[in-house]
Each structure stands twice: as C-alpha cells, then as structure tokens.
C-alpha cells in the first residue's frame, strides 16, 4: 500500500471539513465547520486559508473558482474537493486516532471520553 502524507491536527480538521461539506466546501463553510470540529479551540479564517493552500500544494485537495454570486458582491467562490491522496491521508490519520483512542481506553477506562468532555 502506498504511504500517505503525514497530516498535522489542523490539516486533519480542514480535510474532514472539506470531505463532509462535499460540493459546498469553500472558505466560509469550511471555516464554520472547522470551528465546530476544533471546539473549544478557536480557528481563524486566515489559518484555514493557509492550510488549504498547503494542502493544495501537497495535492491532497484541488480547487476551482465557481460562478460569481450576488450574496458575495458578485464574486466567485473557491470550491475545494478532496483528492484521492487526501482521502488516503485522512483515512490513515483516522485509523491512527482510533488506535490512540483504544490505547487510552485501556489506561483510563471506557468512560474517559465522557469525563474529559465535561472538563
């Protein structure tokens, strides 16, 4: 199996947002979804832009300009799409998280997730 690109935590969040949003993935919606995923930490729109650029350079996502829309002052959206390499990288990151979660459950017990969420 081909080795996938190693992802940072924020990159994982942005890729997840792009995957979840599908055809509606562009700056504003990706930022909103990343904020939800990163809660309680904050995520700025600028950080999302920079990460999207980096992911595009790594060819994990691709982008295209949509048609202009009136609610955006007649300006186009840059819509993002997950590429096959991006999906592979995200899958590997998810599997690693799952393994980590299992290891933590062994040490902290099965209720650790609920306990930490309250904190």
């Amino acid at each position, binding site marked *: 199996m081909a080795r996938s690109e190693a992802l940072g935590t924020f990159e994982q969040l942005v890729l997840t947002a792009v995957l979840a949003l599908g055809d509606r993935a562009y700056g504003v919606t990706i930022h909103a979804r990343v904020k939800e995923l990163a809660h309680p930490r904050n995520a700025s729109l600028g950080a999302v832009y920079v990460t999207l650029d980096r992911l595009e350079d790594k060819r994990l996502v691709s982008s295209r*300009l949509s048609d202009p829309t009136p*609610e955006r002052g007649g300006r186009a959206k840059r819509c993002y799409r997950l590429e096959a390499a991006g999906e592979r990288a995200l899958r590997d990151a998810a599997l690693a998280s799952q393994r980590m979660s299992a290891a933590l459950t062994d040490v902290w017990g099965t209720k650790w997730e609920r306990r930490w969420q309250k904190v």
Partner: protein
Amino acid sequence: MAESLNVKPPPWLEFLVSRLVPPACREHVLGDFSERYTSPLQYAADALRTLPFVIAGQIRRTSDSLRLLMCVIPAFVFFGGLGRPDDVDSVAWLHALPPTIGVAIAVVLRSAYRSPDNASSRQAVADAAAAVACALLSQAALATIHPQWVLAPLTVLGGSVGTFVTVFALRSVSSGSDLRPALATDDLTSIDGLVRDVRQFERRIRERNRREVLAGLFVVVGFGAYLWRGPELVSRIGCGLAMTGALFIIYRIRTRGVAHPVPTDGALSAAMAVYRRELERQRDLLRTVTWWYLLPLLPSMVVLTLGQAITRSQPAPALRGFGFVLLIGALIRQLNQRAARKLQHKIDRLTAALENQE
C-alpha cells in the same frame, strides 16, 4: 447568511481591502469577506485578522529562493558589495547590504502581488522599478539615521541601473511560472488539453532560444570589441575564449534546443508519444547544462581573472569576481535541474496516460 443579501460593505472599505489582498486570491477572499459582512467594523476586523495569513501564504507560494538569489546576488555586487578593485580592506559588503535587502523585499512582495493573468513585460518593468525604488528608499532612510553608511552617488546610480536590468531580465524569463498548481486544468489526456499544452511548450522554447541566441550574440559583440582594443595578451585570449564559448552555446541551442512541431491533427496517442519525445529531448538538454552552457564559458573566466590579477598585481578583487561568477553559474545549474525535474514529472504523466490507453 441570508441577511447578507441586503447588506454590503461600503465600496471605499472594500476597495481599500482589495488593494491589500494579493491578486491571485483577491476574488475568493473578498467574496468570503462580503459573505461574512455584518458591519463596517466587523469587516475591517475580519480583514485585519485574516490578511496577514493570506499575504504570508501567498509569499510562501510565490517565493522562489533560487530566483531570489539570482536577483539579490547581482544587486549586492552592483551596489559595490565586492568592493573597489584597489580597496581590499574596505567593509564595502556591509554598505551594500541595506540596498540589497531593499531589493530582496521588493522582489518577494512583487512576486506575491503579481497578477496571475497578466504576465507581461510591463509587469517585469514594474518589478524592476520596485526593486530599485526599495533600494533607493533604504538609502533615503540611511541618510536620516546613519549618513556614513550612504553609498556614493555613482555607486547608487550603477547599482540601480544594474539591478533594474537584472531584475527585468529575470522577471521577463520567469513570468507566469508560479502560483497555484494546475491539478485539474492541465489535462494531457484530451486532445484540447494536449494541444494547449503543446502550443505553450513550443512558444516557451522558441522564446528561450531567441533570448539565448541574443545573449550569445551580445557576448560575441561585446568581447569582440574588447578583444580589438584589449590592453594585454592574456585578457585578449580570455575574450577570444568567451566568444568561442558563446558561439558554441548558440550552435548547441540552434541544433539541439529547437522545438520540433508536434502533429496534433492525427491520433491522440501518436501526438502524446511525439510530445513525450520532445519533452525528453528538452529535459536532457537542461540536465546537461553544465557541459554545454557553463563549461564552455569557464576557460574564458579563468583566463580573464588571471589577466585582471596580472594587470593590477592584486589577485584578491579578481578572485572575488571569479567567485561571484561561479556562484551565478551554480545557481543557473540549479534552476535548470529544477526545470528538468518539472519536465520529468510531465513525462511521467504522459507515460502513464499512454500506458492506460494501451
């Protein structure tokens, strides 16, 4: 988001922000700002928080350390960084640093703010003018803070002219070769995509050949004039060698570097195969640039350095100049190796597409 249909940012504020957003991402970033708009204050705060990231991201994407060095090193030399031939112990390099840093800042910012759709020679002139303006600004600033560090007017003039010519030449060559990676657009498996790519490739090769031949002729004429009126034998031999080297480069470009036309009116696979052969030929030419481009000029550089050292009975300045020429040669080699790697990437894609068709 529905309320934003009726609320728009004030045009003056939008105009102000649009001037700060690099053109390559202006459209979608301003669109996102408009969509999030609720009040002028929120819009300004949004822009202030986001723009540093956008500008830094664009600088990261468009900055090219090799090309930057190709602009900055000559600028350093033109502003007297190597010192005067008769002044060995000076700290000239320190005085040449502020204008060189100014040139570097201008080149980096102009790259980030370069329009992706308009790669004209007018932009190259603007890039060169910005580089010179920043160098002059550094001198103006020094005049108020530390007047002893200000360069002599003649050095400033020479540095400005040299920097302008260098930056203009380099930016004309590299125009439009940056920005977003074209993942979905450069489709080589359709006849339209292939024709577009082939035409662009042929045009670039023609322009490069024309430029190299012109530069070669310039070297031949320039060194020819010096050879005619040259002061001593060693320098005249150096001039003769430089002319021979330049003529060899012209010959090589005219024989091996010419782009043979790719037939695009027949079968797609046949056109792809011919195009791949053409790319391989150009890749090999770039990979071997040390042998046919740099080495033919090296003997002349050695002899000219020797001539300078003998004439002035002072080898240090001539050796510094020789080191500078070697450094530029190494950078040229690196640039060509990188271009060869890019071509290899395209060759691999064509090979994969051809295998899929079989």
